[in-house]
């Protein structure tokens, strides 16, 4: 995956080279070099945590600007269900979807409907396949990327079913083409809470090409949507999904929809890593399903959302309550059909482990021993001033030739003290050159005379 396109980019002007992102990155993918953050493409899983923690707002997701939709004659928005939880005092899905449509789209289709169909496909797969357990959901792209990088032996546990947004995109494209619109005239845009999805619209999981033409950040359209909601008239009937589809927005929603009792729902990258460690140790073979989500609280905690995930969780419940009371007449008259959607991944997921210390095992062992020796010398307080997240990572960076021991201010201080002492020592041994009471000072007159 050398050509993997990442979802997070850095605004160099804004980055002040602090330690916020390097310390919080769950895969230690960021270093500060020459005063600016540098993200390692080989280690980044696109979780977007650095976007959230950066005080300077120097990290941003590589989403598209709204103007991209003008490139396509027929424009469709696919809102993630987490969008419904962004608005205060608003729980009517049709109002939200209409406001979104009025931003310039020809149609709006809920990702939540795709989620419901993915749930059905997953249920069927689980009942028919008794292979690797526990199965791990493929819905969170950051978790899938974490597995291919850090837990490649668990690739066989990944559920080989496409993500809801891909299912919805495929269904929409087919529907719009059935209206007589040529394939290339259709632009399908995911309204995303998620940074990682930006990469996956380019490098989809388990298929060659994504049906998504662009990813638009929820944050970017929030204000114009909110303005549109005030005074919105002629609310359209666009709602199709039921509550189980909308449930996917929060952690635990996907597995509760599957109605598998023996399932684990885990959110937050650090927690997901812990659970995957246990799977790798063979400790969780008695579990059927793992729903792992990189963001705290699930997708409602995504880096491109507006509302705090805990507040959003409550709003989502309110939206769902109102959905339950919706009459069939208020729903989309011609629901989108998923009849021809292929829910199975067509491409094998390949491992992409982080680079080895050395291709040769003996040399790699030698390097690791060297890392341990350097680490033993370091202060082990993980201050981050060297630009590496921990002293351990710093020792590895030195051995990999990406850092110098003097980048550590403590080591530098020791070295300066040592040199100063040496100088002092040496000065005591110097023979007397001029009068000891009058130190030598160059006289300008002498220099002038020389000229």
């Amino acid at each position, binding site marked *: 995956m050398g050509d993997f396109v990442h979802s997070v980019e850095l605004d160099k002007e804004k980055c002040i080279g602090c330690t916020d992102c390097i310390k919080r990155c769950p895969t230690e993918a960021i270093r500060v070099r020459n005063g600016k953050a540098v993200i390692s493409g080989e280690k980044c899983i696109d979780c977007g945590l650095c976007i959230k923690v950066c005080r300077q707002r120097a990290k941003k997701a590589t989403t598209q600007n709204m103007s991209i939709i003008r490139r396509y004659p027929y424009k469709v928005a696919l809102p993630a269900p987490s969008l419904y939880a962004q608005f205060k005092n608003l729980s009517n899905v049709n109002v939200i979807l209409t406001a979104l449509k009025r931003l310039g789209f020809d149609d709006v289709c809920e990702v939540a409907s795709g989620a419901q169909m993915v749930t059905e496909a997953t249920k069927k797969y689980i009942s028919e396949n008794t292979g690797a357990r526990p199965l791990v959901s493929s819905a969170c792209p950051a978790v899938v990327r974490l597995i291919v990088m*850090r*837990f*490649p*032996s668990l690739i066989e546990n990944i559920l080989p079913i496409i993500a809801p947004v891909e299912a919805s995109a495929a269904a929409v494209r087919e529907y719009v083409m059935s209206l007589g619109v040529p394939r290339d005239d259709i632009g399908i845009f995911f309204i995303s809470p998620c940074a990682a999805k930006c990469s996956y619209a380019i490098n989809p999981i388990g298929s060659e090409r994504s049906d998504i033409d662009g990813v638009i950040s929820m944050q970017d359209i929030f204000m114009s949507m909110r303005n549109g909601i005030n005074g919105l008239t002629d609310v359209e009937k666009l709602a199709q999904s039921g509550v189980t589809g909308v449930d996917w927005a929060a952690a635990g929603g996907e597995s509760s929809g599957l109605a598998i009792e023996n399932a684990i729902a885990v959110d937050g990258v650090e927690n997901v890593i812990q659970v995957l*460690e246990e799977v*790798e*140790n*063979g*400790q969780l073979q008695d579990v059927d399903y793992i729903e792992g989500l990189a963001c705290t609280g699930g997708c409602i905690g995504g880096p491109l959302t507006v509302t705090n995930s805990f507040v959003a969780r409550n709003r989502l419940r309110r939206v769902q309550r109102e959905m339950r009371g919706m009459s069939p007449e208020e729903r989309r008259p011609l629901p989108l059909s998923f009849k021809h959607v292929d829910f199975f991944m067509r491409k094998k997921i390949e*491992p992409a*482990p*982080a680079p*080895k*210390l*050395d*291709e*040769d*095992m*003996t040399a*790699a*062992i030698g390097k*690791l*021993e060297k890392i341990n020796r350097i680490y033993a010398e370091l202060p082990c307080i993980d201050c981050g001033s060297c630009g590496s997240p921990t002293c351990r990572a710093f020792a*590895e960076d030195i051995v990999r030739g990406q850092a110098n021991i003097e980048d550590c201010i403590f080591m530098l201080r020791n070295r300066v003290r040592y040199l100063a002492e040496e100088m002092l020592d040496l000065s005591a041994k110097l023979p007397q050159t001029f009068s000891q009471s009058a130190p030598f000072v160059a006289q300008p007159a002498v220099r002038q005379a020389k000229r």
Partner: protein
Amino acid sequence: MRLHYDVSGGEFLRAGEASSSLKKVLKQLGVSSDVIRKIAIAMYEAEINMVIHANGGVVDVDIDSEAVRIKLEDTGPGIPDIALAMTEGYSTASDEVRDLGFGAGMGLPNMKKNADFLNVMSEVGKGTTVEIKVNL
């Protein structure tokens, strides 16, 4: 290269730290994921056994370009009948331990299944030494 771990007994929450740490080292060395999984399972089971039955112990790991050799030593109660202990489902773990999800009687069988070489030496009242070798 040599690694040494002290495993403390009775701390179920921290049990498995040594195997996690070894796993990290092996990943850094670029050992293939299938082999890492085998080592992880075998070592984890052995480490848990030490915590459950023997109040902890010490682990020494030796890694070279051909194999990973793990030696786990404890001064616990020892295993009276090793052959019986190797039987799937056989367990002497207390109900308390079982309530924590351990003691299913799969520890030694799982070690045997995943190791290329397994040697269990035990003397009742003195302790147990487990040697695991997994080829790279």
